[in-house]
């Protein structure tokens, strides 16, 4: 009886292992941050090049392959044919540099519309596959806590709050791509800004009692938040 149960458990483990191996290796596994090419010959992978890209909540690994990328946004895309063991096997380049321009670390979306990225074999002799990205202009900007929680507009002196700005399209959906954000405190003696640069992520610190306005801008759109430190 005990031997039968043991054998049955072993068989279960073997079957589970087989399913995992088949699911991740043999059956053209596609991760959340990947998308099958339009020709179905392999998969494209999106990677953030700047912290604060809406596609990446933590590291530079995208949570999902984005539906829309902001005009002006920086990003990277690599390609892996089904029969290649590693990503980056095919070279990826835009069809038209008036839509997407290559940068040192990836690509920059330049104007609204659908834009194809081609994956060629390493000898550049033929096209392996391609993908179309939707590039959308920024229509608004929103600010939340770094983990998506609402902004706390009242801070104590010495208290730090981690903020995240998001570029939105005209349907109020977050746009992907690393953008250059402007952060400005109307009164740094009341509300001080951290030194995280022009990314979507910023720390604000309550310094002394008083009121201050935080001005956050991206691509000609801005939002003002009224902070009280007490």
């Amino acid at each position, binding site marked *: 009886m005990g031997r039968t149960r043991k054998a049955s458990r072993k068989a279960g483990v073997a079957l589970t292992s087989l399913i995992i191996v088949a699911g991740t290796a043999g059956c053209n596994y596609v991760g959340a941050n990947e998308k099958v090419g339009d020709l179905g010959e392999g998969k494209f992978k999106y990677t953030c090049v700047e912290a604060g890209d809406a596609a990446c909540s933590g590291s530079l690994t995208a949570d999902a392959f984005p539906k829309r990328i902001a005009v002006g946004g920086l990003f990277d895309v690599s390609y892996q044919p089904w029969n290649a063991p590693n990503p980056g096997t095919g070279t990826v380049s835009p069809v*038209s540099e008036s839509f997407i321009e290559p940068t040192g670390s990836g690509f920059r979306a330049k104007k609204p*519309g659908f834009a194809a990225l*081609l994956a060629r074999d390493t000898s550049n002799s033929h096209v392996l596959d391609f993908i179309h990205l939707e590039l959308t202009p920024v229509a608004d900007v929103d600010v939340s806590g770094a983990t998506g929680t609402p902004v706390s507009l009242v801070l104590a002196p010495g208290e730090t709050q981690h903020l995240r700005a998001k570029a939105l399209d005209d349907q109020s959906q977050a746009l992907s791509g690393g953008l250059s954000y402007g952060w400005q405190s109307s009164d740094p003696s009341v509300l001080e800004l951290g030194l995280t640069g022009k990314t979507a992520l910023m720390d604000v610190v309550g310094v002394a009692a008083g009121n201050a306005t935080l001005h956050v801008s991206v691509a000609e759109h801005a939002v003002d938040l009224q902070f009280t430190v007490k």
Partner: protein
Amino acid sequence: MMTTHFRFALLAAGCMLANGCIFQRDEPSFGHLDIADVSYAPAKADLEPNHVTLAEGIAVKAHVSAVDSQGAVYEPLHLTSMDPQIVAVEPGPTAGSWVFSGVAVGKTSIRVSGGGPLGSVGVEVVSQSGQ
């Protein structure tokens, strides 16, 4: 009385006429492209037998063969863009497939050859906002 030279000239003229009129072969000329298995395109992509219209910025794949004036099919082909700054044409992932890319707005043509030159088709790349 005809001289020998004159007789030769007459004979040569006769031969040339016979060669031109009787023995002239009807060389087939390029008819049109036969386009199949066109991939999905999110913007304008009309691949017609004698003309291609494509939106700037997008790519489309198709299986392409050529048909001459007598209905003979030519395959494999070689397609060459006459202005790669407007449209790019590159071999695709499978035999006989080609990828057309709208590089910039403008008009040009694609030369079609299949061993020897066959002909050409016109191409127009149009703006996505104005399509």
